[in-house]
């Protein structure tokens, strides 16, 4: 690979500044004593964090978000893996259509998906419940899990599974001892990424959450009332949580340990 020239470095620095400066600013102002985000900065304080996290609705929203993200990631990863494995293992008619449908949800406009989910979930009486949000988020997150598992399966020597059968493993045993261990990094990665998708998701959650607000929904509600540095404090926590999940997911996908 060619080394990056000076211009390249400047370009990269500018790009990352452009992307991360607003987030960095939000983090900086979350520790700033001034009421409004202006320069020069006041003095360092954790007061906004203390205030934000003393509000019961913040804790409730965090708890909601964590439950939804946790359950969503498990269900979405399970369905995503099963879908990817079906694609890997079987040839059938309309397979292209099957794949297109399976990967469709993230390409739908979120407002449309949110409205549709709201209409449908209220029909079945799940609107405004955590279960409703979970269902909506599973729909959104599953394609990501599937894409990750599919990538991993595509790196697998197809004889690996047959080799397990050949050595005495039945289909389920081969799944347990060969396919799952091979896909383990992808599965962990899919769990992290789908959790992050759910944890960050605002639009659909806003439509279907009702009184069970998740963190992004709560942030908007506080913001509609007034601009308050508490938002920066909550935002910093949300950002760190999501980033950790995404970084963990990337790490699992790209590390070159024990892969064939």
């Amino acid at each position: 690979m060619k080394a990056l020239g000076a211009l390249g470095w400047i370009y990269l620095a500018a790009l990352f500044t452009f992307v991360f400066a607003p987030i960095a600013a939000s983090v900086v102002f979350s520790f700033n004593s001034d009421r409004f985000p202006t320069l020069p900065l006041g003095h360092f304080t954790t007061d906004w964090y203390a205030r934000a996290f003393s509000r019961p609705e913040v804790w409730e929203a965090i708890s909601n978000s964590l439950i939804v993200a946790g359950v969503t990631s498990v269900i979405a990863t399970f369905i995503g893996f099963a879908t990817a494995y079906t694609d890997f293992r079987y040839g059938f008619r309309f397979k292209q259509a099957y794949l297109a449908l399976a990967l469709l949800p993230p390409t739908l406009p979120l407002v449309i998906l949110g409205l549709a989910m709201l209409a449908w979930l209220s029909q079945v009486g799940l609107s405004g419940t955590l279960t409703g949000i979970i269902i909506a988020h599973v729909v959104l997150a599953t394609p990501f899990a599937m894409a990750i598992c599919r990538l991993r399966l595509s790196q697998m020597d197809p004889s690996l599974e047959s080799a397990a059968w050949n050595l005495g493993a039945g289909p389920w045993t081969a799944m347990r001892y060969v396919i799952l261990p091979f896909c383990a990094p992808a599965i962990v990665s899919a769990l992290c990424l789908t959790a992050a998708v759910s944890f960050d998701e605002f639009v659909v959650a806003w439509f279907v959450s009702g009184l069970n607000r998740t963190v992004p929904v709560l942030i908007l509600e506080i913001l509609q009332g007034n601009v308050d540095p508490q938002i920066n404090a909550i935002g910093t926590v949300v950002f760190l949580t999501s980033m950790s999940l995404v970084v963990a997911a990337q790490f699992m996908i790209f590390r070159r340990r024990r892969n064939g």
Partner: protein
Amino acid sequence: MAEPLVQFRAVHKAFGTYVAVKSLDLDIHRGEFLALMGPSGCGKTTTLRMLAGLEQPTSGAITIEGKVMNDVPPHHRDTPLVWQSLALFPFLSVVENVEFGLRMRGIGTKERRDRAMLWLDRMQLKGFEHRRIDQLSGGQRQRVALARSLVTEPQMLLLDEPLSALDAHLVIRMQGVLTRLQKELGITFVYVTHSQSEAFAMADRVVIMGHGQIEQIGRPQEIFRGPRSRFVAEFVGRNNILAGQVQAGVMQSPQGSVPVGAPDGPAEIVVAADRVTVSRDRPAGAAIRAAFLSEEFAGTGIICYFETPDGAEWKAQVSESQLSDLQAESGQEFWLSWDPARVHVMG
């Protein structure tokens, strides 16, 4: 004679409209080293996969020890396969790979570790048991794959072009390892390959397949010196084929008329490259005229390529000193001659 270990009876295998194997009849005996050889798409790998239960015959029957195996799933058979890609499990250590078959048979931790270690020792892999697969060389991986397949002490081992990914010098060494192993264990090896040098070097019997059918079965020498069809003669390589009409012991062919020991009528004769003599002056007996094209250094000598006036390619194997004596230049014409008693008449 004892009952064969494996019998294929009128086995037919089709994938959609594509027929991979046509009415195959084949007996595989206990303790023999059998090579299935043919060009790609000849059905040899499909035959092997049917034996392992990875494909089901469309019709016909495959029996192992007299039991019809058509519907027995792969994991209920004792037919371990050494894969072309080796298919070692990358997430397991060397010893865990070797243990896999024993583990699937529910053998306890201690015993399977002991038995796996025994095989690693036998394959000269002691000290490598905790390595990961990607830390091994090609030859070491090959031996891990062998140990993994043999640890359950099967009566038959299937091998699907296992040496095709190795360097040439390793191939020769592994051929030695395989033949010795097969003799020591006394089990049946069924070896699929497209390489005649591998098949002829190792196998007791060679099955030549073409277009889903068996073209010829025999000992390597029989097939090498006595190909039964043009397909076999061409596939086995370094053979020259002369076709024509025989009348009173003389064959009229597009390359010239030569004496042959064949009855009157149409005939095809095979002249092996190592039985062709190249000379500038016309020798007595069977000889045809051809222009020198090029030479190729092969393992056992030099193969010279010639073209006859009607465009047929002829091969002659010569030694290095013979080649320098000839001082052959491209386009020069020579006489190619042979002893009519040492050619093979096909049919």
